[in-house]
C-alpha cells in the first residue's frame, strides 16, 4: 500500500519538476488582461501583437481598468462550471504580480489633483498581497518634469510601487514588458527551489558551466586540481601553478600536511614562479603565511563554518 503512495508521490514530484523547468514552464502560465484595453488604440495594437506571439492570454473584465495579471496552471483540476468534455477544468492559480497601465494624461491629471496617492491603496484593496507595477509612457523632459519625477519617486517610496516607463512605440514596449514579466514569473518557482539550497550560503555560489572540467577516464584531474585551488580568492594563476609544480595532485599536498610537522611554514616559503622572469622590486615571491594557513584550514578543518 505504501509502495503505491510512494509511486504516486514520486510521479507528482516528477510532474512538478517538469512544470517548473525553464522553457517548459512558459506553457503553464497565462496573462490575464483587462477588457478596457480593447477600447484604446494602445490596447488594440497590443492585442494584435499578442496574437502573433506565443504567449497564452485571456481577456476579462477586471476591477481596475487597464490592469494585467498572471495565472499558473498547477496541474489540479476543478469541476467544470461551463461545458467541458471531461467535466473538469484546469485550475489556474493567481500569481502575485499586477501591472497597471496608465496613460500620460491620466498621470498628469492625477498629479495635479493629488490623486496619485490613491493608486497604490486601490490596487492593494482589489488585489491584496501582491507586488504592483505602474506602466506609463516615458515622461518628456520639460519644465514640469522635476515635479513629475518627484511624484513618481514618492509613489515608489510611499506606496511601494514599481514604475516602468515605456518608450516608443508604446504598444511594442508594453508587449515586451509583458513577455519579460511572463518569463520571470514562469521561471520563479524553479529559481526559488534553487535558492533554497543556496539559502545557507552567505556568498552566492556561482555555477558557471563554461569553466567546468570534464573528467574522462582520469584525464582532466590536473586541470580540476588547478580549479580547486583557484576557488580561494587569493590564489592567482601564478600562485596555483607554483603550488601545482610542488604538489601536482591533492594527495601530495594532503600527505605534506600530515607528514611534515612544519608543513605550513614549508608551504608558506614556497616560491612563486613568475611568468615574466626575474624582475626587480618583487614583493610577494613566496606563497606566504596567510595563504598557507588558509590552505591548511581548508583541508584539515572539520567544522564547516570555519572562516577561511
Amino acid at each position, binding site marked *: 500500500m505504501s509502495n503505491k503512495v510512494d509511486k504516486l508521490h514520486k510521479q507528482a514530484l516528477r510532474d512538478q519538476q517538469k512544470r517548473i523547468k525553464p522553457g517548459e514552464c512558459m506553457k503553464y502560465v497565462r496573462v490575464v488582461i483587462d477588457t478596457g484595453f480593447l477600447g484604446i488604440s494602445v490596447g488594440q495594437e497590443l492585442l494584435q501583437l499578442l496574437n502573433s506571439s506565443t504567449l497564452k492570454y485571456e481577456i476579462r473584465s477586471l476591477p481596475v481598468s487597464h490592469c494585467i495579471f498572471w495565472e499558473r496552471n498547477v496541474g489540479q483540476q476543478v469541476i467544470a462550471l461551463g461545458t467541458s468534455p471531461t467535466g473538469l477544468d484546469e485550475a489556474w492559480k493567481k500569481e502575485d504580480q499586477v501591472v497597471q497601465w496608465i496613460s500620460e494624461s491620466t498621470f498628469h491629471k492625477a498629479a495635479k489633483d493629488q490623486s496619485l496617492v490613491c493608486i497604490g491603496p486601490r490596487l492593494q484593496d482589489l488585489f491584496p498581497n501582491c507586488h504592483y507595477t505602474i506602466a506609463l509612457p516615458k515622461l518628456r523632459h520639460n519644465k514640469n518634469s522635476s515635479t513629475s519625477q518627484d511624484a513618481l519617486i514618492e509613489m515608489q*517610496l510611499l506606496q511601494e510601487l*514599481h514604475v516602468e516607463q515605456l518608450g516608443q512605440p508604446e504598444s511594442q514596449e508594453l508587449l515586451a514588458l509583458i513577455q519579460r514579466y511572463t518569463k520571470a514569473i514562469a521561471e520563479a518557482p524553479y529559481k526559488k527551489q534553487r535558492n533554497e539550497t543556496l539559502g545557507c550560503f552567505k556568498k552566492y555560489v556561482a555555477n558557471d558551466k563554461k569553466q567546468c*572540467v*570534464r573528467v574522462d577516464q582520469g584525464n582532466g584531474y*590536473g586541470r580540476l586540481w588547478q580549479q580547486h585551488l583557484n576557488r580561494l580568492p587569493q590564489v592567482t594563476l601564478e600562485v596555483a601553478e607554483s603550488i601545482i609544480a610542488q604538489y601536482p595532485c591533492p594527495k601530495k599536498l594532503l600527505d605534506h600536511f600530515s607528514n611534515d610537522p612544519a608543513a605550513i611554514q614549508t608551504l608558506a616559503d614556497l616560491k612563486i614562479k613568475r611568468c615574466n622572469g626575474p624582475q626587480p622590486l618583487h614583493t610577494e615571491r613566496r606563497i606566504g603565511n596567510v595563504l598557507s594557513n588558509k590552505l591548511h584550514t581548508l583541508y584539515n*578543518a572539520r567544522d*564547516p563554518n570555519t572562516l577561511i
Partner: protein
Amino acid sequence: METRLAVRLKEPNPLFTRWLERWLREAERRQQKSQFKLRQALEALKCYPLPLYSGRDCAILRGFGGTLCQMIDEELRQHRVVNLLPPTATTSEQYEQQVQQVVRKVQEKQEEQAQKKKQREKKPRKPTKKDLQEMAAAEERERRVEMPPGSFEILLLVDIQETSGKNKRVLDQTRSYLESLGAQHEVRRLTIGDFLWIAKDPAGNELVLPYIVERKRMDDLASSIRDGRFHEQKHRLKQSGLKHVIYLVEDYGDNEQLGLPLDSLQQALANARVQNGVQVVRTENHFRSMAYLASMSRSLAQIFGQKTLHSVQDKAESCCLLTDSKLGLLKFRALYDDSAKNAQLTVREVFVQQLLQLHSLSLERAMAIVERYPTPRCLLDAYEECVEAKEARQLLARIPYGPLERPLGEKVSQCLHEFYTTQFR
C-alpha cells in the same frame, strides 16, 4: 603544552675535578709553574656542563694541553684497573638515565602544581587591552539609540569606490552633480551598496534607512552578468538587512555595444524585479541618476523627518512600515561590520565551489555531498575509514540528491575518490 627544560648536572665530572684539585694543591705546595695552567683548566672544567669521558675529550677545554690530557688518561687507566669502573659507554647511558629521571621529576612536579592551581580559587585576571576593546564594542552594539523627530538629519552616503571605471574622475563628477542639485552627502567606504541614507544626530549616532542603491551602467551590468558577479551582488544586497534594494540602471549611450543582447539584460532586470523583489530604476545618464538620488534624498527627509527612530540589533526586527510613526533601524556600524564579515568564506562554501568545478556535478548533487561530508577533511577521513578500496570508491554513490532523491551514482563517486586519493601525477 611543551616546556623547555635546561638540565645541568651538578657535578658533571667529579672524578676529573677531584684529580685536578689534587694536582693543583700539589703544584701550589711545590710552587710549580704548572699551577697556573692547572688553575685555568680546573676553572674551565667546573664551567663545563657535560660529562667528559677521557683525557682526550678534555682537550676541548681551555687550559688542557697535551700533557694534562695524557696525565688524566693515565690516571684513568690506573683508576679503572683499581676500581673496575665500567667502560665509558655505560657512563653515558647513566647520564641519559639521570637526565630522564630529572625530566620525570619535573613532570611530576608540574602535575602537582597544576592540580594545586585547580583547587585554589583562580584570581581574576586583569583585562587586557584587547578585552577592553571587545567589551567596549559589544556595549556599543547593544546600546539602544533613540532619535525623536527633529533631532536628526538625513544624509546621503556615497561609496568611495562608486565609479564605473574605477577612477577618481567619475567620483568627482558624482559629487559635483550632487552638489549642483543641492543634495547634501558624505563620501565613505561602504562595504555594501553604492549609496545609502543615514539618520544622524548631533551625538554622532547613525541609523541606516532601509534603502540601499546599487548603481549600474548598462555595460557594467552586462559584464557583471557574464562573470557571475550580478547574482552574488544581488544576494548580498538582499541579505544586508535593508528592506528596499534599488538597482539604478543607467543607459550607456544607445545601449548597443554592451557585450550581451539588450534583451537579455532587460530580462535579467525583470527577473531581479519579479523573483528577487528588487526595485529597478532606469535613467538616461549620470546626471539623471544623481538627480534621482537627490530627489530621493528630499523625499526621504520629508517622510522620515517626522518619525521617531530607534535602533534594533537584529536584521529581522528592522522591517518598518512607513505608516508607523516609530521605526526600528539598524546602526550604520552594525551594517558595516556585518557585511564586511559576510565577505569572508567558510570552509563549506569553498568546498561546494570546488565540487562544482567537476562538470558532472550539479549544484544539487554538490549540496547532497556537502550535507553528508561538510568539509574536505570529513570526506577524506571517511575514505580512510573504509576497509577496502572498493568501499571507498562507492562511498558517495548511494547519496540521494534533489527533490526526486536520485542516487548520485557510481561514476561521480569513483571520480571524486580517484581525484582525492590517487597520485595521478
